[in-house]
């Protein structure tokens, strides 16, 4: 989309574009031509990311090379490799898998959208919101599953008590971002569970933040490596820190597991540290009994689920009462291990929602935010209040360089579609944004207006369309994905079809596989003229490279009368010349291929007659016998009378027969025959005015000579009669 991306410096740019001028790289070009090379180069894009450079020799030098035939130029294709489409998915094959996989959910959703629009038009009612959000959720889940499955590795039979974190497949930011969008935009049914969904989300993706900001996940990983060498864990500050951090962001199973590593559980210690152990276990039990406002929990996760708000409320109060009771218990006085006592009390504070404790236990603001949902405000709902809370957390735990996922969350919470779009496009590339717009527009009229409004500064297209066009452009730049681009282009109302035609024209159709693909795409989208053009290009290419049969075939398929007539012309030129046996076979074969369609100038019937006529004319010219000449004249009249004889051969036929028209021994044509020929001449002069008239290459005086000869003949014929 040239033109749209200019002015990238200003804020209206939709596509990230770094204006820093890189130092140009110089690559030598191996074209294998001998110097001197004229300064004539033609550079164009070939298929995919290849640049086609045509190097021409200057015509003089080509002429002067004697002896050996030298080529006049050479075409070199350069493959340009650049940064990957999404830096995140650096494995190109894996990236293409996502590209392939997202085609069918996207196309499916577009079909549904069109069908629903048609239906509502029929019924004069607005399309059903509920039904549509169901489709969008389906779509979102399908795309989500493409971005990688979080299948945890099968748990070992004998679980190592010292393995706190499981080594799962590395999660990707792309998937994390998609899930965020799904939580906020697609999953309308479970909006009241957004806090718990975010808790789960952070559980899955906290490790992603590690590189940029300190995170609980990295803290735990660090602690786990140390754990093997620690004798008495409860004396280590890191141990307690790990537990409180894990607890603060709701990783209950991990905190309980860690608590049970406490030294007081060891059999030889049990006698002397009974009270201490009782306290540890009590905290562990309280942690595992935490009420959760959600439908269910995945296997291995702790907490008690409440579907109903009032039930949850009761359980929550009861749970907090139990914590307070334990906090005030007299047993703490009997606990001799000071560190255990202090830190267990700290854990109770976390569960009671002490802001300072939570702030200390968490690493970045998002974790603090989650901790707030869990322990302070489990009923937070509505984007506005969630946004206020997020801002508060950001103040408590400011980050200098926020992670891209954090930026995305802020944009979503701020209900700012532009920011969400910009973040998606900046951090996750064209694939993300082309597919995410469906989620953003689902159920939000504001977003829909923003995305679907036609904009003059975008050349009259909407934001949604422009993103799809950009993505289609990305697809077109790869040899294996270009055939997917039409699906996205065709969903663009304004410029889609036009760009699709350009894309199709750009394909190197002289490769038969690509030609067939091209024809198939044209067939699917009713682009008859584009398909005819591709066939014409292929036909001419084949003809020029000696594959005459294939050339004629494709030109016939394209219905290219003009070029077929040209070919017929070359065939006609052949006729009458001295025909050796070998070349006779060639052109006989060609006549066969040209078929006998009445529309085509190269009608088989005419060609045969023409050849016969030319043969007999040659005999007459060799040594004129009046009888033979008369017979030839008869066949001339027959050919001229025949409607299948192409008009543009009338004059050459007559010009060829000049000798017959001015036969010395007397006129060979009678008055009516001469009149017929004169009429044909008359018709020709009228036809000349028509735009489709094909000029024949004949000497300038040809027409005059024929007219003169006919006039002479007419005179002689009248006299004779």
């Amino acid at each position, binding site marked *: 989309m040239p033109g749209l991306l200019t002015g990238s410096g200003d804020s209206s740019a939709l596509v990230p574009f770094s204006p820093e001028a890189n130092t140009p790289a110089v690559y030598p070009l191996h074209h294998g031509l001998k110097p001197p090379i004229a300064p004539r180069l033609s550079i164009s894009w070939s298929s995919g990311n290849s640049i086609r450079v045509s190097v021409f020799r200057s015509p003089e030098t080509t002429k002067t090379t004697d002896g050996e035939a030298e080529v006049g130029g050479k075409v070199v294709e350069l493959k340009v490799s650049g940064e990957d489409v999404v830096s995140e998915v650096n494995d190109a094959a894996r990236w293409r898998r996502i590209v392939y996989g997202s*085609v069918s959910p996207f196309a499916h959703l577009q079909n549904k959208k069109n069908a629903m629009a048609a239906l509502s038009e029929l019924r004069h009612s607005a399309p059903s919101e509920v039904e549509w959000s169901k489709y969008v959720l389906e779509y979102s889940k399908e795309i989500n599953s493409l971005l990688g499955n979080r299948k945890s590795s099968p748990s070992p039979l004998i679980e190592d008590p010292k393995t706190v974190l499981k080594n799962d497949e590395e999660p990707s930011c792309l998937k994390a971002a998609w899930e965020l969008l799904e939580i906020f935009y697609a999953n309308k049914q479970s909006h009241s569970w957004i806090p718990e969904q975010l808790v789960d989300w952070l559980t899955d993706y906290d490790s992603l933040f590690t590189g940029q900001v300190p995170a609980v996940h990295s803290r735990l990983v660090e602690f786990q490596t140390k754990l093997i060498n620690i004798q008495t864990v409860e004396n280590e500050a890191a141990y307690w820190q790990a537990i409180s951090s894990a607890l603060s962001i709701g990783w209950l199973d991990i905190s309980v597991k860690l608590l049970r590593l406490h030294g007081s559980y060891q059999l030889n210690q049990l006698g002397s540290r009974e009270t201490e152990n009782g306290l540890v276990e009590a905290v562990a039990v309280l942690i595992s009994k935490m009420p959760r406002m959600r439908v269910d929990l995945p296997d291995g996760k702790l907490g008690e689920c409440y579907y109903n708000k009032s039930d949850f409320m009761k359980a929550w109060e009861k749970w907090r009462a139990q914590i307070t009771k334990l906090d005030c218990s007299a047993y703490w006085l009997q606990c001799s291990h000071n560190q255990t006592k202090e830190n267990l009390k700290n854990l109770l504070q976390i569960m009671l929602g002490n802001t300072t404790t939570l702030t200390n236990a968490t690493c970045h603001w998002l974790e603090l935010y989650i901790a707030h949902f869990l322990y302070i405000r489990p009923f937070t709902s509505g984007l506005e209040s969630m946004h206020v809370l997020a801002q508060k957390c950001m103040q408590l735990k400011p980050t200098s360089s926020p992670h891209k996922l954090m930026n995305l969350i802020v944009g979503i919470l701020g209900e700012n579609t532009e920011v969400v779009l910009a973040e998606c496009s900046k951090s996750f590339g064209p694939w993300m944004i082309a597919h995410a717009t469906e989620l953003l527009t689902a159920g939000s009229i504001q977003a829909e207006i923003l995305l679907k409004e036609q904009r003059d500064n975008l050349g009259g297209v909407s934001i949604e369309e422009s993103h799809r066009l950009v993505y289609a452009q990305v697809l077109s730049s790869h040899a294996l994905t270009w055939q997917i681009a039409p699906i996205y282009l065709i969903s663009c109302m304004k410029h889609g079809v036009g760009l699709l035609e350009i894309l199709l024209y750009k394909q190197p159709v002289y490769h038969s596989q690509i030609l067939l693909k091209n024809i198939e795409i044209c067939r699917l989208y009713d682009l008859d003229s584009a398909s005819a053009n591709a066939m014409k290009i292929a036909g001419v290419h084949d003809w020029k490279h000696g*594959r005459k049969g294939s050339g004629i075939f494709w030109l016939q398929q394209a219905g290219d009368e003009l070029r077929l007539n040209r070919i017929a012309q070359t065939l006609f030129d052949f006729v009458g010349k001295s025909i050796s046996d070998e070349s006779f076979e*060639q052109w006989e074969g*060609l006549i066969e291929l040209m078929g006998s369609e009445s529309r085509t100038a190269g009608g088989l019937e005419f060609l045969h007659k023409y050849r016969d006529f030319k043969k007999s004319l040659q005999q007459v010219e060799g040594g004129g016998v009046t009888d033979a000449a008369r017979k030839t004249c008869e066949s001339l009249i027959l050919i001229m009378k025949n409607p299948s004889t192409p008009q543009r051969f009338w004059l050459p036929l007559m010009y060829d027969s000049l000798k017959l028209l001015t036969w010395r021994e007397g006129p060979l044509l009678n008055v009516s025959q001469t009149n017929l020929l004169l009429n044909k001449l008359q018709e020709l002069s009228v036809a000349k005015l028509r735009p489709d008239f094909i000029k024949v290459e004949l000497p300038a005086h040809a027409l005059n000579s024929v007219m003169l000869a006919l006039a002479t003949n007419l005179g002689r014929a009248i006299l004779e009669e």
Partner: protein
Amino acid sequence: MATETLKQFHRLPQSTYIDALRFLPPLSAFDRYVVVAAFNSDTDESAIGIHALNPTDAPTLTLQSSFTTSSRISSLKVAQKSLQSPLIAASTFAGSLHILFPNPIDASFESEVSIPEKMLHLGPISSLDLQESGSACVSVGEDGRVNLISVSDSGLDYRRVFDSKGLVSYTAARWASPTEFATGGLGNSLQWWDQRRPGGPVSQFKGNWGEGASCGVVHSIDIHPSRKHTCLAGGSYGSVFAWDLRRPQQPIILSGIGSGETQTLSSSDVWEVQFDTFMTTSIISSERVLPVMMCSEDGILAVIKQGEEATEILAENCAINSFDIDRHNPADVICSLEWESIAILTRT
């Protein structure tokens, strides 16, 4: 259209584009191998690889050995000399031809003989076929040449059977017997050749050349060893038809547009046709065409029986470029999908 229930179906994503694939005749009693011609778009490399197929509930393909070719593979065939190790024949778009001999013990490539580019054809070899005995190969191209390549212990030897000098372009070839073979080309045309009568095709089917839109290209031919007079062809616009040499003017149309009473399974290119050797029920009368399996550009894999409703086996979102039926266990089918993956299925 009926759909068939499958006992097993698996899609195995690859990181390369699969140009062609074949089951390899068994090297030993326990192993199963698949030959795959793959194109890596990132490195621009083409290779023929032998993959071990482990037939469990979750089948996997493990690359055993690989042979790099200079250009992409246009046609891939396998054959087995009686009780000897199998051999693989492949032609490239650059015009070279390669015969590979896999080692029966470790499935590595024991040796390779080839004919370089520009010797057999001008431009790409569009199709090649290997005789069942593995002793001879026929190659055709769009340049209009037909070549016979004899494969012997001393190497390869070739001779030109015919050269149309570009007047006729051939796009498919298939052996019928040790002396006869069929070719196909543009305009749904088919030619029958007999080495005992040299100089040109002995019989021709003109197809519907010049009839406008419904006129297409033959992409694939098959001939059943038990009925050598019938030539099965698949091509553009979903056409699948059988040409009986005994009634050469009347093709039996099995599927395709404009076929009147017969069904239309697909209206895109039919990339490959093969007689389906997997019989479940009745014996087919000798008057009927044997069951046919086809795959198409619009992602259909189906079995067509003359006079019966076709059975759709797969309907994919992308093109199915080629398929192969395991000769020793015809319930198993393997196919290559356009979106860089291989599908393995077992019929019930």
